[in-house]
């Protein structure tokens, strides 16, 4: 089910402000791509254009193409809601729905798709929670509020919620930045397991994490504050971390930045 993403000459705006300029890249199915770069260079912005979450911000717009297996996500007849159903997203801060139980949180996406059958729901919830390595910790309290879990558990709950609807692509914006090292490892392991089935894009500030989990790495940078961010290069993670083509990448990765 995993799909390829092709980004072609994408400019991204917040109102009149051009936040990102001229991004072109290819993201292969069943692989993990990491976005790295200094704060404010537009990693989150690019990520959010991949499932059309960018445009929910008032005044935000894009110019260019994003193709999902050759289908243009920004074509006139493309429904953004349908795009978001096929491309799931996990946010920086865990955001389970606070009034819903653990079960209902995971089932939320299925219910939006009109699944009502109790048996289908509970099977999918179990499978997703197992997929997110959370099942053993919560199987006895599925009816308790999702907000009652620890931060790391909440983040895995959000991952379970995102994979419950079997997306083709999973986008993660710094999913571990609010978590302790143990929870971080749990989520990294999880990424390793689920990349068999999904195309994964992850934003991270943690170089080791990028090196550990990703197959390919994209480095973004910006010339100066107020200038648009740009994609400097994207390549195999091995190559990016050992002998990148660009000087800026090497400087950033080796910590000689700015």
């Amino acid at each position, binding site marked *: 089910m995993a799909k390829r993403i092709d980004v072609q000459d994408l400019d991204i705006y917040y109102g009149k402000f051009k936040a990102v300029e001229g991004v072109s890249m290819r993201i292969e199915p069943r692989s993990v791509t990491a976005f790295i770069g200094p704060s404010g260079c537009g990693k989150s912005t690019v990520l959010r254009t991949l*499932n059309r*979450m960018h445009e*929910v911000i008032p005044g935000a717009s894009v110019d260019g193409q994003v193709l999902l297996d050759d289908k243009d996500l920004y074509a006139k007849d493309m429904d953004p*809601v*349908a*795009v*978001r*159903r*096929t491309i*799931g*997203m996990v*946010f920086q*801060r865990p*955001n*389970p*729905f*606070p*009034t*819903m139980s653990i079960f209902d949180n995971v089932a*939320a*996406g299925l219910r*939006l*798709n009109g699944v009502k059958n109790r048996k289908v729901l509970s099977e999918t919830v179990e499978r997703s929670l197992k997929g997110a390595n959370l099942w053993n910790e919560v199987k006895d309290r599925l009816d308790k*509020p999702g*907000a009652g879990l620890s931060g790391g558990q909440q983040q895995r709950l*959000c991952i379970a*919620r*995102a994979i419950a*609807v079997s997306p083709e692509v999973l986008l993660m914006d710094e999913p571990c930045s609010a978590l302790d090292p143990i929870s971080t490892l749990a989520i990294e392991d999880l990424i390793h397991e689920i990349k068999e089935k999904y195309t994964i894009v992850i934003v991270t500030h943690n170089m080791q994490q990028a090196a550990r989990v990703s197959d390919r790495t994209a480095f973004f940078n910006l010339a100066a504050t107020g200038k648009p961010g740009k994609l400097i290069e994207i390549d195999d993670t091995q190559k990016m971390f050992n002998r990148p083509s660009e000087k800026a990448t090497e400087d950033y990765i080796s910590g000689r930045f700015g």
Partner: protein
Amino acid sequence: MTSVTGVSAPDPSPTSSVASRSTGRLGDRVFSGLSIGAGTLVVVLVLLIGLFLVTQAVPALQRNEVNFLTSSEWTVSGEHPRFGVAGLLWVTVVSSIIAMLLAVPVGVAVALFLTQYAPTWLARPAAGTIDLLAAVPSIVYGLWGLRQFGPVLVPVQQFFAQYFGWIPIFAPNNGLSGNVSTIFVVGVVLAIMILPIVTALSREVFAQTPRAHIEGAMALGATKWETIRTAVLPFGKPGVISAAMLGLGRALGETLAVTIILATLAPGTPWVASLFNGGETFASKIANNAGEFDTPQKTGAFLAAGLVLFLLTFVVNAIARIVIERRKAFSE
């Protein structure tokens, strides 16, 4: 026990020496003194009002010859007073419930529209206009209801009486469904009066829905309405409930508009379930008779009715409070 108390009690000397050095501490003290004083004042005021009602009402209640809660008679002078609040309770509660049933769905819908759908250039002036409804004096609502809006509602009443007359609350009631001075009209006017409260409070809670919850729902592929159902409404529910309760409290106590619109019934008129009927609420009963509180017994009887309204409103507001507190517990 004594030693424990002794340990936990603050040592006065360091506190005072610090206070003399730092104006911040002094400010703290002045402020806490003022707020404790103000808080106490409010509690004392409420207690005094309650005490006033009880001391005035009890002697009259003791001489009452019928059950105060179940009777609808109202003879308050003479050697054998017979009075009860059943009729008043019915009219008060029913008109307020009509008001709530109409105002809450409309208020919530308006609040959702203003916070989730309307562009800013429309949302601001529209919200301001609705808030203006709160500034219209009750007497204007009363006169408007009687002269202009009531006549518009009469055909609605007649429609219900004709097609749903078999349901007791819509019974034509000897043609009173053709009259403007009914419980039904009062309920609708009350609904308009409480609409601004319900809308304003709902608008506030809906606007506070955390961005993270809304984006969480949207990222799952929720449409606008589904986002509202999964993120906005669950977050706002306790706020809406308390808004409804505050509106209800306001409707229960509304005096002037009700007094102007509602027709009083001749003493001894038998009770009917129909909404197309006159009557009196607690507040309008007291207002209608304010001119004749000449003996302590009469005054006491009316104040007994006032006491029931006080308790009713108190309970409704308490429920609103409890719901608000519960909400704080789980909204970060």
